[in-house]
């Protein structure tokens, strides 16, 4: 039986606060952690079917019509089985939730680095060499590759004007009017995209590095021309995603096509350089931000107009202004997004698309406003918290920004901060502190899960993935808590499309979506147990394997002569039309900046986050550490460099693209603001995976200003830019 839930109304009954076992909401080990530390979690490239062949993708060296002049010679090389240049191969990874094939074709390259062939051989070494031996000539014209070369699109649905912003900007007591730029960035998950495909003549089974299997299944089926039910995807362990594995990727489609054609299993692993090129990157942004305020820092108008880029025929555009729609009150508003269609590798979702870069730039502007008005930065945010959604007028489902700001400031010791910059020097190092607010929209998407309870324990099943987010842990906790089981009696099985379709991992919605489906499945089992005992579910206590109903105590084992199956199904209802729902937080950072070299070191960082109920503080904290560290990367080190002439990614490896290393990251403090968001479902839990990055970089950039008096508006703040800004500021 299925317990269905449509999210239309608030859940004022906080059941999860009354559960007896003390498992949900408490620190627990990741069950998958033990496999991971032993090297026994198997990722996409780590199965070894009989007759496995190895495929290597080949890239286009330029844009235009593609010709493979020595295809036959390469195919005749010893050990080479096939040089496949298949029209169904995909141009780039599908966008998240696309649910259908992305742009296909290999006879034409729209960007430098596009996969245009697959070389399949008996060994990886042979395939790699043959891929290098294939001569790819491209006969075409150079296409525009920088945003300034084209007139950008201005989609009507991405422009907002409320009140009279232009007059407000002209007449304001205080106006901040600045342009901020962020570079292109990438997810750079540690596991390269990889697929092992097996075709039995009827069904395609593919083990992949994928985040959202129920969509990926349809994307792959559509790409290769199979009915969806003839595709099975497996992704029990995924080595990070951060958006880059949302949609079906080139390795999957190519491996599937090759396996179907050759009748043998084929593994395709993207080379790290291909990981940079053929999936999706975060677009670079140019953000014009205007803040009109009274002398005491009350916002009367705000403008946030952004330019991003995207490859032709892609729907996604980095939603830079998403957070600005609801972050701050101001009657007069001008928000807009422009899209330059250029021939760089496709843009797509990278951790917290929109707010990651949009809130960061906006929160730097807010710091400039704090400096201009002399209002303390925390106080400035507090002054401008809206009491309802500033554009739609809808109430907030829950709004804990004030608590996040105050509790964070208290824990960080913000109060002792001098107002003026350049007040502390430690040898050649200037030190200072900065803060920012954090905003992120909250989403729930349709999800299903199944639990089978028997004498020997419970098994939770969903095609949901765990990309490091902690799905295994929290589903185990939810089921154990509701079903009165010890943790080790609950097994969680994920990442197989033969299980009920979960939400997939993305948009921070996994816990609140698939987690709620697991909750519902468990509730459905509780109902069946209650029925067997002849009591109401609400009167049933399940603890340590004992069912208690009034004065009756029954061993669950006695009740479970047969298996009980519960099925949970949640889908978004009209709650999102009734309320504005988001997560809120605050970041605080202390930095040291070398007066000699312009190098910046983050000395400490604290984040306070309100994300509804925290299901497992340990895994939640790690998610926040991740977001905050990405903020360090965004502020200081990460920049994807495109060649100005043809748009190709110049630094497409992990030596040239600098993700933060251990030495860049100090101990990070995380505190969770107590919150139950009743509109978020029966657990009152919201997403947490992305809030930590939103605005984190701004706290660091603002701390650099406080330390040195230098304002960075072009991220990242590499030593050369910090020195230039210090020089410009007259120091």
């Amino acid at each position, binding site marked *: 039986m299925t317990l269905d839930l449509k999210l239309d109304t608030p859940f004022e009954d906080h059941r999860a606060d009354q559960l007896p076992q003390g498992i949900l909401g408490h620190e627990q080990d990741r069950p998958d952690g033990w496999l991971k530390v032993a090297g026994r979690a198997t990722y996409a490239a780590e199965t070894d079917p009989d007759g496995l062949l190895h495929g290597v993708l080949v890239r286009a060296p330029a844009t235009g019509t593609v010709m493979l002049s020595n295809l036959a010679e390469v195919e005749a090389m010893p050990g080479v089985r096939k040089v496949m240049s298949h029209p169904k191969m995909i141009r780039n990874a599908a966008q998240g939730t696309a649910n259908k094939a992305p742009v296909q074709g290999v006879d034409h390259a729209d960007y430098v680095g596009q996969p245009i062939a697959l070389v399949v051989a008996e060994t990886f070494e042979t395939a790699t060499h043959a891929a290098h031996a294939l001569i790819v000539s491209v006969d075409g014209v150079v296409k525009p590759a920088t945003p300034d070369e084209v007139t950008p699109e201005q989609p009507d649905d991405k422009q907002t004007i409320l009140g009279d912003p232009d007059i407000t900007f002209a007449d304001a007591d205080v106006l901040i009017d600045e342009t901020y730029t962020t570079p292109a960035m990438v997810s750079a998950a540690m596991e390269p995209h990889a697929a092992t495909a097996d075709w039995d003549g009827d069904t395609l089974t593919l083990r992949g590095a994928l985040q959202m299997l129920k969509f990926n299944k349809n994307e792959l089926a559509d790409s290769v021309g199979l009915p969806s039910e003839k595709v099975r995807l497996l992704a029990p362990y995924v080595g990070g995603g951060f958006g880059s594995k949302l949609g079906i990727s080139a390795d999957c489609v190519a491996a599937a096509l090759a396996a179907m054609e050759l009748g043998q299993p084929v593994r395709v692993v993207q080379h790290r350089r291909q990981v940079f090129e053929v999936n999706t990157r975060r677009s670079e942004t140019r953000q014009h931000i205007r803040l009109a305020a009274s002398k005491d820092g009350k916002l009367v108008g705000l403008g946030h107009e952004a330019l991003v880029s995207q490859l032709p025929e892609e729907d996604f555009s980095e939603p830079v202004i998403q957070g600005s729609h609801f972050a701050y009150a101001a009657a007069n508003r001008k928000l807009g997004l422009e899209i330059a269609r250029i021939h760089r590798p496709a843009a797509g979702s990278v951790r917290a698309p929109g707010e990651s870069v949009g809130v960061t730039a906006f929160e730097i502007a807010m710091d400039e406003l704090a400096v201009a008005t002399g209002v303390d930065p925390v106080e400035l945010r507090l002054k401008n918290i809206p009491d309802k959604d500033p554009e739609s007028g809808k109430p907030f489902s829950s709004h804990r920004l004030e608590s996040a700001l105050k509790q964070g400031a208290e824990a960080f010791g913000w109060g002792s901060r001098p107002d003026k910059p350049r007040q502390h020097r430690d040898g050649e190092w200037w030190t200072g502190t900065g803060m920012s607010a954090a905003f992120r929209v909250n989403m729930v998407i349709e999800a299903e899960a199944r639990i089978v309870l028997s004498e020997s324990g419970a098994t939770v099943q969903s095609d949901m993935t765990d990309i490091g987010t902690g799905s295994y842990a929290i589903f185990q906790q939810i089921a154990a808590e509701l079903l009165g089981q010890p943790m080790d009696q609950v097994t969680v099985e994920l990442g197989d499309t033969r299980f009920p379709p979960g939400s997939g991992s993305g948009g921070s919605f996994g816990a609140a979506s698939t987690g709620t489906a697991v909750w519902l499945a468990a509730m459905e089992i509780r109902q069946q147990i209650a029925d067997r005992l002849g009591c109401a579910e609400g009167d049933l206590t399940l603890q340590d394997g004992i069912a208690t109903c009034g004065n009756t105590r029954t061993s669950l084992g006695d009740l479970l002569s047969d298996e009980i199956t519960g099925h949970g199904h949640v889908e978004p209802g009209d709650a999102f039309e009734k309320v504005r729902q988001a997560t809120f937080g605050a970041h605080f950072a202390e930095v040291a900046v070398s007066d000699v070299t*312009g190098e910046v070191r983050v000395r400490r960082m604290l984040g306070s986050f309100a994300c509804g109920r925290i299901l497992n503080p340990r895994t939640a904290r790690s998610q926040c550490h991740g977001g905050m560290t990405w903020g360090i990367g965004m502020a200081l080190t990460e920049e994807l460099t495109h060649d100005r002439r043809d748009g190709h990614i110049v630094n497409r490896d992990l030596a040239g693209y600098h993700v933060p290393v251990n030495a860049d990251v100090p101990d990070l403090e995380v505190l969770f603001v107590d919150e139950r968001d009743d509109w978020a479902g029966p657990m009152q839990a919201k997403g947490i995976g992305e809030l930590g990055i939103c605005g984190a970089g701004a706290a660091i950039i603002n701390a650099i200003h406080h330390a040195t008096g230098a304002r960075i508006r072009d991220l990242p703040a590499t030593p050369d830019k910090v020195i230039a800004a210090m020089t410009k500021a007259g120091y």
Partner: protein
Amino acid sequence: MKPFDYTRADDLQTAQRALHEGGTVIAGGTNLIDLMKLEVMTPGAVVDISRLDLNDIRDHDGGLYIGAMVTNSDLAADLRVRRDYPVLSRALLAGASGQLRNKATTGGNLLQRTRCPYFYDRDTSCNKRTPGSGCAAIGGELRNHAILGTSDDCVALHPSDMAVALRVLDAQVEIESLDGTRHLRPLDDFYRLPGTTPHIETSLEPGDIITAVVLPKPTGGQQSYRKIRDRASYAFALVSIASVINARDGKIENIALAFGGIGARPWRDTRVEDMMRGQTVDDQLIQKAGDLLLSDARLLEGLEFKADLVHRLLSSTLTEAVQ
């Protein structure tokens, strides 16, 4: 990788013969395998010299004799190096990662190739990779590139930290030729500037093999290595400076300076040292030294910042040395 014959050399002569016949020697392999995987380098024969008996560090004429196969880790941790040549330990420890330093060798480090991303990209032109094909870096995106010693054909940077320290220490490279004779060559004469032949990087002849690096007697003085990079660890230098300075009462008695991150080879300019010797360190002298050092610098778009960083490192290094 292109298929290749692999042999393990039992003696130097085997390795030298293979080199003479166009093969490549492999020691730590941290750069060679990297480049072979991308088929930027495609040797048909690879001779493994990693087990040759070239891995001792011994006293030598008051200085130090460092076998070519000594790993970067062992060299950095050697007590004599830490005591008498701290600039070398510091430079080694500022480079790469612990794992790479365990594998990378002294000889191999000297011979590592540039990290210019266009050199690494077979789909762009590069005179170093394919002589005469052109230089895609010029007019492209420049950051880890040189501003000194470059040419119209190549702006590649020598990426080594270790070699910068060795240059400041007046190290000599011991080379054994095919005929079995050994001679010492100053590091200053070891590296060639790109000119019109950027693919020829050193003065090694076919069959020559590096057997050791020899350090002269320590000269005392204050030694330092400072490296600026784009993250706190595990990144190549934007600019680095190695220094050995003897100063008294604010006056420089003797000085040696070498720079990384700016030169087509590990950079040293004795004109700057000669000019400073006997002088009192003040802002004017520092400015003059920097100007002289950079008088021939070619600051292509994207590399302008390096001039400022050089001045700043020079200033802090000199100021600290006389304090």
